[in-house]
């Protein structure tokens, strides 16, 4: 009898994610593992991990990985991919890493059309450092460095990386997804798979942004975070394909 549902080969039996209960990081990690197996590319995959909660991957998944300087994942991926164009190279980054300290690296890798895939987890907060304001923190949302809630007049509005990248010519595929419902989890997996397939076909730069939660630093139970997301994050960052030019590129 064939086993239909099984652990991804890159997540061993005894693996401990280290992610907080209810956090969508673990879901996305599982989905990446499934996609790598379905595409049968573990033996040619190199993952560039950011600094942030995403760094916890290094003990979780069993594929070749590098943990690099905060914000520089897209630059590192550029250097690696240029030297080994036949490998599948993806970055795994939080929103602070991608959209604050690493905004230049992200925009320029996208603008050059580097043939890499970016997976970013947007949970509207700095998780690992203990709940500081992120570039994506909602207006009014409290964080340790905006104790009275994010104030537009003080720090501006949440940064929309997808829309910024959508002003550039080179990116091939940009999609915003979430893991808040079973249907959306399926869409997230399909988006990751499409990004990797495009890269393997040499089509160019893709980014998948996963709108995510942070029960610990939002001070909400996992289920309550889903309600909060629906009211706030998913309104600020609506899900869907922002750009898909995969069909136009041979």
């Amino acid at each position: 009898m064939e086993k239909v549902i099984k652990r991804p080969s890159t997540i061993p039996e005894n693996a401990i994610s280290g992610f907080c209960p209810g956090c969508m990081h673990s879901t996305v990690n599982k989905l990446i593992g499934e996609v790598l197996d379905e595409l049968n590319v573990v033996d040619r995959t190199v993952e560039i991990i950011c600094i942030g909660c995403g760094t916890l991957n290094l003990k979780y998944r069993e594929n070749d990985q590098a943990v690099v300087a905060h914000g520089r994942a897209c630059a590192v991926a550029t250097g690696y991919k240029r030297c080994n164009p036949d490998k599948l190279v993806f970055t795994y980054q939080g929103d602070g890493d991608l959209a604050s300290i690493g905004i230049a690296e992200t925009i320029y890798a996208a603008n050059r059309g580097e043939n890499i895939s970016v997976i970013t987890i947007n949970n509207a907060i700095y998780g690992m450092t203990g709940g500081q304001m992120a570039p994506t923190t909602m207006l009014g949302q409290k964080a340790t460095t905006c104790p009275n809630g994010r104030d537009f007049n003080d720090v501006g509005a949440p940064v929309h990386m997808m829309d910024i990248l959508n002003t550039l010519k080179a990116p091939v595929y940009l999609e915003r997804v979430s893991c808040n419902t079973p249907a959306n989890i399926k869409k997230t997996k399909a988006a990751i798979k499409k990004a990797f397939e495009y890269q393997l076909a040499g089509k160019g730069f893709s980014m998948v942004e996963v709108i995510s939660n942070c029960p610990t630093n939002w001070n909400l139970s996992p289920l309550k975070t889903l309600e909060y997301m629906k009211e706030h994050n998913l309104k600020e960052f609506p899900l869907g394909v922002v750009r898909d030019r995969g069909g136009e590129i041979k």
Partner: protein
Amino acid sequence: MSRAFVKGGDAIAEAAIRAGCRFFAGYPITPQNEIPEYFAKHLPEAGGSFVQGESETASINMVFGASLSGTRCMTSSSSCGISLKSEGFSYLAAARLPSVICSVQRGGPGYGSIKPAQSDYLQATKAAGNGGFKMIVFAPSTVQETIDHIYEAFDYADKYRNPTMVLLDGVISTMMEPVVFPEPLTEEQVQAIKDSKTWALNGKKAGDKKKLITGGATEQSNMECAEMYEYWAEHETRAEEYLVEDAEFILTAYGTTARVARAVVDTLRKEGIRAGLIRPILVNPFPYKSFAKLDYSKVKCVIDLEMTIPAQMIEDVKLGVLGKAPIRTVLRSCGEVMTDDFALGGVKKIIEEY
């Protein structure tokens, strides 16, 4: 083999390509723009990749990525640009990733001056980034020596799995001199070097363990590096000791200033003054022994010549001399290039006092 007359910056890039460098990333800054420009033109011809990074920080991290693949890779910059790259140097050292960094010094601090200086000695040798790592730092004093050092630096980087620096100044990068280039490595040799790096990331093969390379460190990794640095101090120091045996006046200088100091020693000798020169060829590890073994019953004074004010290498010279002779300085800075006449005048003035 016939001599070519080439600019220092071009020579650096050509030597790197011949040494098998197949990736370069950098950001424009004077006085080292000839280096990225040469790579942009010639690296693709050699099957390599050149990227003009969006910043110094991005560029050094691209080099980090290239090194993860086992490819011989390099960056170059100048003073304030080197400061921006220091984050990357530290990560390369933590991850034990080989790479070559060419630092072309100009005036400082701040944006200083676009003209030549030796203002970043302490940064290069003591703290090129956070965390207490060290690099082997070459300090060539002619365009020919720069070529030889760049070529060799790739071997050192691979041997020790560590970033390796070639420390120059804007004189060497912009001047032209006759040189002879070493033979280029063949494509097969370049590939063999890449393939030999079994630690490089290539994708986990079935049955293998995954490879993980991080910019992190542990006490254990700190101790391993400390052992390596001690090994360098014992086995890798390199200095030119010129006419020091009977010398009463020991001049010391590195890089551009050293070639000036050598000319001063020759002039002084013709005038019957017993002068000699200690020229660190590597400024890290520093050749303390060259100073320790001097006959201090003869040495009246050690004279440190540098193109930076206040002097920086003097900190190391002090550790070599250990108070056994007075140390004096002849200095210029911020684009005022040391000339033979200026150095000779300064040295003679000091000699008159002894």
